[in-house]
């Protein structure tokens, strides 16, 4: 069980003058309990605080106030690697690109073994990555889809208690999204993984037991997809809203 207790994340406001720093609240007093083995989808408009919330759980963003408790243990002050070793893993929305480091390196670190058979079995389990990926450098030559598949594999290789996937479908071709949803569902069922997916994609929203709708740093709704539909339609959740919500530019980029 992962509990968020009055979690708040503030950053200095870019417009502040330094002497009188204004603070901008990105995540505002969020409390929520993720039950063990549940499948959760976090959605909401761009800039609503979804990724910031996910990064707070992983420890990439520091908490301004509040507490994060995993299976009864307060992990609020633990650094990233200790949270990871406690069972939380985060799949980045924009995965890091390295020079020289290969998929094999990342997978070996994640799995804690460089045993060839085990790595091959892992790739088979993930399914979406081809074996030829193994010795590819995880660098700027990889396509957006390839690097996201690698990211997914490294999360699953950790056998996490809590797996957070930040927009796992970015750059992924349409016909891979179905298998990807099936994979996350299978991992959830077989390993009782608490699964949290930040997404705008209906396939993930439908797969989730519970949907969290984030708006202006707060949970505006939690429950089933049906109940969220009126609000989602109202928000017209669109990944391009920052581009099309202008006075002069009315073209739809969707």
């Amino acid at each position, binding site marked *: 069980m992962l509990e968020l207790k009055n979690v708040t994340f503030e950053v200095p406001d870019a417009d502040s003058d330094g002497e009188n720093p204004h603070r901008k609240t990105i995540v505002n007093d969020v409390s929520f309990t993720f039950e063990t083995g549940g499948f959760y989808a976090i959605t909401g408009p761009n800039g609503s605080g979804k990724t910031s919330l996910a990064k707070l759980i*992983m420890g*990439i963003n520091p908490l301004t106030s509040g507490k994060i408790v995993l299976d009864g243990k307060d992990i609020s002050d633990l*650094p*990233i*690697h200790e949270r*990871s*070793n406690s069972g939380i*893993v*985060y799949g*980045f929305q*924009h*995965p*890091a690109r*390295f*020079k*020289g*480091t*290969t998929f094999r*390196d*990342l997978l070996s*670190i*994640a799995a*804690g073994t460089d045993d060839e058979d085990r790595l091959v079995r892992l790739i088979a389990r993930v399914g979406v990555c081809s074996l030829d990926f193994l010795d590819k*450098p995880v660098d700027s030559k990889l396509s957006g889809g390839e690097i996201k598949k690698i990211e997914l594999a*490294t999360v699953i290789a*950790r056998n996490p208690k809590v797996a957070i996937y930040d927009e796992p479908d970015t750059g992924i071709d349409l016909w891979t999204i179905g298998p990807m949803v099936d994979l996350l569902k299978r991992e959830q069922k077989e390993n009782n993984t608490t699964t949290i997916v930040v997404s705008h994609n209906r396939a993930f929203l439908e797969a989730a037991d519970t949907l969290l709708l984030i708006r202006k740093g707060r949970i505006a709704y939690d429950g089933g997809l049906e109940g969220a539909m009126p609000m989602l339609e109202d928000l017209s959740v669109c990944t391009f809203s920052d581009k099309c919500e202008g006075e002069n530019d009315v073209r739809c980029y969707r």
Partner: protein
Amino acid sequence: MLDATDKQILKEVADLEGIPKGAYNIRKNGKLLGREVSANINITTNEKGDGIIIDIKPGTKNESVHIPVILSQAGLHDTVYNTFIIGEDADVTIVAGCGIHCGGKESEGHSGIHEFQIKKGARVRYVEKHVAIGDGTGRRILNPTTKVFMEENAYAEMELTQLGGVDEARRVNEAVLGAGAALLMTERVMTEKDQMAESKNDIALAGTDSKANVISRSVLKNDSVQDFYVNLTAKAKCYGHIECDAIIMDNGKNQTVPALRALHPDAEMTHEASIGKIANDQLMKLMSLGLDYDAAVNRIIQGFLR
């Protein structure tokens, strides 16, 4: 014939557990320690007696030659002139390298002046590692010069590595590429403490459809200094690329100067260069896979210098 230090140095510079198989020439403290030739690879001392000539017969396939240098005599500064002639259509691996063991206060140095003549259609992989070990305080100096002349459709892959221990290094690499020739040169340098390393590269793409790719990876620890210069000159329709990246760990100072010169209208040339600390997103990723900060830094550097 080999003492414990020699064996350690051979292991580090040439990955050898003892005397290599096939052709080799081992030089220790300015003198010949051992030599073996093969049916296709001949090694002779040059006329002046200040180096060797490695002559590889045309058509020689899948053979290798090892020419490591061991330096363990305080105060010795050894200069050697080696010539490599790689016959037409040969396909060989040359493992060179120099290891310095410094046990005293006096400096020790080695300057290897290497010239490669790579004949038509020949392929060569040249692996050169420089290491320096020992508890002595004398400066360890390595100043290699590599000149490469590539004939039509020749191919060369050169891996030049120096990972710590060397106090001063001044490297010069020059290459002239004939038509259809391809050169892939990768330099990896890690410096620490107050070490300095300088690398000056001059590559001329002289023949039509020649290709060169120059990659430099630098890691600067402590107060070390590294300067990297590369001039790529296109004299024909050709393709050239330079990629140099430097990671500054502490208070290192780096200068990276890639230069492209097109003297032909059909030249295609690109370069990318970066200097900076280890990228934060890379650290976050590895830490999110359970590595602590130091372990994450080590893995990133290991991959970078691989």
